């Protein structure tokens, strides 16, 4: 299996914020959703997911809450905070500009 392209630095944070912007989820659900939304192009190992979540939590962008799941287990649910939502908007804008710029450069016609 060829190694999937590494996530660009900081993009995992952006993805996680975006996913949580849609709805509060627990860690396992986030890992499923990640695979689901990005296909198999962006592979995020379970190993790197949790440290990233904890970092976002410590920075105050997301907050966590212990809730009972449908199968009656306690799980830690993450949701976006108000500052986190603003942060996401800013980062998304940045990402849009960056992506546009790079795709512009990549498509330059060679003469």
């Amino acid at each position, binding site marked *: 299996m060829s190694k999937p392209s590494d996530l660009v630095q900081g993009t995992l944070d952006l993805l996680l914020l975006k996913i949580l912007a849609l709805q509060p989820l627990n860690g*396992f659900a986030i*890992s499923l959703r990640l695979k689901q939304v990005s296909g198999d192009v962006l592979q995020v190992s379970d190993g790197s997911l949790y440290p990233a979540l904890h970092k976002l939590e410590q920075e105050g962008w997301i907050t966590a809450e*212990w809730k009972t799941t449908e199968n009656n287990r306690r799980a*830690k649910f993450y949701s976006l*905070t*108000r500052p986190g939502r603003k942060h996401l908007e800013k980062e998304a804008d940045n990402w849009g500009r960056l992506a546009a710029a790079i795709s512009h450069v990549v498509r330059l016609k060679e003469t």
Partner: protein
Amino acid sequence: MRPERWIYTLPLRLRSLFHRQAADQELDEELRYHVELKTQQYLNQGMSQQEARRAALLEMGGVEKRKEECRDARPVSWLQDLLQDVHFGLRLLRKSPGFTAVAVLTLALGVGANTIIFSVVNAVMYRKPPLPEPDRVIVVSSSSAVDSSTPDRVYSQLPVSGPDYLDWRAQSSSFSGMAAAEFDSFTISGGSTPERASGARVSPEFFNVLGVVPAFGRTILAGEDQPGHDQVVILSDELWKSEFGGDQQILGRLLKINGNPCTVVGVMSPGFRLPPFLAKLWIPLVLSHGNLRATGRDDRYLRIFARLKPGVNVRQAGAEMATIAQRIAQAHPNTNRGWGAGVMSLQQYSIADMNAGPPLAFLMAAVAFVLLIACANIANLLLARNSARQREFTIRAVLGAGRLRLARQLLTECLLLSFTGGCLGILVGYGGLHALLPRFNWNEDAVVLAKEVTIDGHVLGVTLAIILVCSIFFGLAPALQFSRGDASNGLKEGGRGTTISRERHRMQRLLVGGQLALSLFLLVGASMFAGQFIQEMRANAGLNPHNMLTASVSLRGLEYFQPQRQRSFYESVLRRLTSAPGVQSAAVTSDLPFSSPDSLPLTIENHAVTNAGEQPTCGHFAVSPGFFATTQIPLLQGREFTASDNADSVPVAIVNEAFARRYFPGENPIGRHIRIDPAHRTSEKPSEIVGITGNVNEYLGQAVPRPEFFEPFLARPTGSMYLMLRAHTDPALFSDRLRRAVWAEDSNQAVTDVRTMERVIRDSSAGDDLLAELMGAFAASALLIAAIGIYGVLSYLVGQRTHEIGIRMALGARPDEVLLLLIRNGMKLVATGAAIGFLVSLTLPKVIAAGFNDFRFHAAWVIALAPVVIIIVGLLACYIPARRATRVDPMIALRYE
């Protein structure tokens, strides 16, 4: 960060700080939940239970490692790690008390020695005088070439004449004020007992220029530098308290200063000092008309203080003063040719005046070496201990501890060690200073310096820096070694301690060898200082200092203006003293041996002088008839002075052996004549030489005796004399009798410097004995620490080879063979270190001679002896652990891991 975010982050911080366990538990639960769901997912895909769980864990990539990463995401984790490391480190240190004690104590010794010496250096070099804007306070001095052949070498701290001072003050524009002071000693009477105290006559601007005001009362007013208006005195806080009990009503009181009545008008505050100038009282300086005449320019006795104008620096002021001095020299060539002006800040002046550079530099080098040796020792101990901990580190690394995290753990342990050792070291420093400072007693300057020496913030800061540098130094070696280690190797190596990495051995050998070389170097240095001092003390003094008491009396007051009165005063005191029981004899002399007596230029019969610069200058003593009997300076030929050698008789003189050899080689000097240069004595008749005595030392460690001559005191009385008596028993018991004999004659005269002759000689060493003792103490500490180092490393090596020794002994090696083998191993190290140290020490005589130009000690035997000492100490340090190894039971040794 904006407040909005704090709402979310603050509780998290608090939680990870104070509810760490709960947080960790939740983390654990969260990850476990994930793994369970994942396992379930794989099970649903048709995997077996075991396979599914394994796959789930693999995907996580090590649960413990992830947990650690999540914990690291907490910004306060470093604090927790630190606490954890400190906790763990302390437990480790407690668990190996031997190691801890040795490391902490050696470091305490090293840091303590450095603290002591640096606090002295701090007092000498970095203390600002306690005045406002101290850097702008300037001392202006006369300068003159040391001798005419070398114009580059200049004395630049010479006193200034009255007329020069007035010209300087009128012509210079660099200073906002200039003041003159004449430092002298004064007799104060009118209190309980007459006292002599250092003091100064100062011009009215003096206190203004320095920027100080009295604690109460006033200073000197503008008109009080005129004759007849000058009868006021200002006391120092010290004098006010010691002599007048801090009397609040002191203002207006009449004291007798040198017999003149003076009114106390002010008392200075306790903080006012002007190092290195000593004064406990100040009276107005009257520049008399005699000094202001043109010829008065030759009479240089004033110290000039000035304050720089804003915007002017020392160099600019120096340039201006040089121009002015040159102009004066051109206008008054007879008195001022070759004389310039030296400008220094008070602090610079003080440092130059103390001339403490070379001894302090050597002491600092010595303590730095001691510390270096101590650090090498700790590095070695850590190396040995960490290699024993290799497995612990490997296991921790395997369990997910980052390399950085482990290095931090090691560093924390080092810092713990060094701070414990350092704090203890500061205590050692306090104790050491307490013991050391009372020894600063060879003269008043030293006593004043001792008061300045404290462990202040500056010293503590430097000590702290030293401790930090130390921990980096001895933490580095083990850390380097660790970072090169490989996890799997670590696990293997622990298995059987047969092949220990050679690299570690090399580092240990290097450290021990270096320690030994440094110790040898220190030992040689210390022995040289000690040898020099012993040689000085043993040098033939020329007199018998045993059972001799001396004291200084300086007659003050108008009634002693006539020499006749001075003579009769001392004659009666001597009569009283000699008739006292227990006193063998008594005498007076113008100068004490070992106190650099006056020199006078002479013309000697039959000894023609062709060049002006070659006129003989000889040591001069004016002595009473009992002098030779009291000092027991042997009379080699001719006769002593008698009571009939007085002002009315034919002038006579006695010369010493060196004088006779030098100026009358192969002749009999008795009956020949000498004459003191007329510039120093008016209408001098030639004196006939009537006797020859043995040589007497003029200063401590004098190697070549100088020509000296003696004149009868009765023929040439002066006011300031030293009394000396020889007792049958302990001379110190006679100090009261001596004082009473003086006061019975005149109760207004002060008797000072009551010292035994032995003390006079010791004081004249000016701290050389202290220097030798300190160097010895530091060398001994270094040797002790190095010995501990050899012992420690050898013990460790022996421990590592227990298995091998067991095999050897099981195969039939005899214990003494094993002993020899081990000792040979250790001694190879000792010999290498000693050899290197020996080679380096060969440079020491030159280095010391460069610092101390009167150092004449021949060091050959010391340099030869020091390696022997090192080798004996090394042998002992090797023998003990080696002997222990031979007692090993082969069966136990083979099983030993």
